[in-house]
């Protein structure tokens, strides 16, 4: 019982913290982000296990976290509004070669990041070659080139 409640509390807190962090927070893991994730994992481990380091307790914690993930995924599929709240929505940040500054600023996306995505995936040289750039739910940037740039 205690382990289930601990797992539920930690799962919900991590979910909320990462939602607060925004789509871009963990989309590109730098070395520092990786170390930060390890530290977060280490801090979380104690809260999840408490003083009980038995195998059974580990099974309960792993089972609870996996079950929560399955339940949340099911709810996201079943109830679209729940999916929006938990997983967010995509946002257009460039439209017909123009940066939508408000959206980009609020999501913490810079023009150089968008241009880099265009260069890496489509060989685009200029912003006017972008038909759309979309910040996806997972934090990645999708680029749709103009017909001329394809």
């Amino acid at each position, binding site marked *: 019982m205690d382990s289930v409640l601990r797992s539920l509390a930690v799962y919900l807190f991590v979910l909320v913290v990462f939602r607060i962090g925004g789509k871009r927070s963990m989309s590109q893991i730098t070395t520092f982000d990786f170390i930060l994730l390890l530290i977060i994992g280490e801090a979380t481990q104690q809260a999840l296990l408490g003083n009980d380091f038995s195998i059974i307790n580990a099974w309960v914690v792993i089972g609870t976290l996996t079950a929560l993930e399955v339940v949340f995924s099911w709810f996201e599929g079943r109830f679209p509004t729940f999916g929006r709240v938990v997983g967010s929505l995509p946002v257009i940040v460039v439209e017909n070669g123009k940066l939508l500054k408000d959206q980009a600023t609020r999501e913490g996306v810079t023009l150089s990041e968008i241009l880099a995505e265009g260069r890496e995936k489509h060989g685009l040289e200029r912003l006017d070659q972008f038909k759309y750039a*979309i910040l996806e739910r997972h934090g990645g940037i999708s680029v749709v080139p103009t017909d001329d740039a394809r």
Partner: protein
Amino acid sequence: MSRKARDLDLDEDLAFQKKEWLAQRVGIGILFALVVGAALGLTGMGGPLSHGEAGQRQDPVFVEFDRVVRRGATATIRLHLRGAPGETRFWVSAPYLEQVRVENVVPPPRHLAVDEKRHVYTIQSESSEVTIRLDVEHQTIGRMDATIGLVDGPSVHFIQLSLF
């Protein structure tokens, strides 16, 4: 909302997105408040707001404690007792001790007597003033009332809040 007018099937919804941005800013504010509150002691275990005192420093019984503690974590209670030199006998209310695990008593008691209402510790001391450290691990969540006193002497009462 679909953006078919833009030749793009996309479930973008700016109205919802604006609510999300607002919620994120509120969330960041709450997160910072949590960090500042924790630094000040609102989440227990140290910090100026967590430090509590029961009684006066010149009284026979003066206790320093954490107002906010956490279940499963060790917290220290410091007792400053003034009695006759030789043997100091103090007691801690039994209901409080049922909710904590006493990990350490420094200096170690020479004798411990237990009854329904209180646990009586006997400490050997050469001085009339003695400071005793109780390290306790809280086992429950919520309000915890504690009373500590000298046998046949005054006592002080204090309250701790145990968080999960």
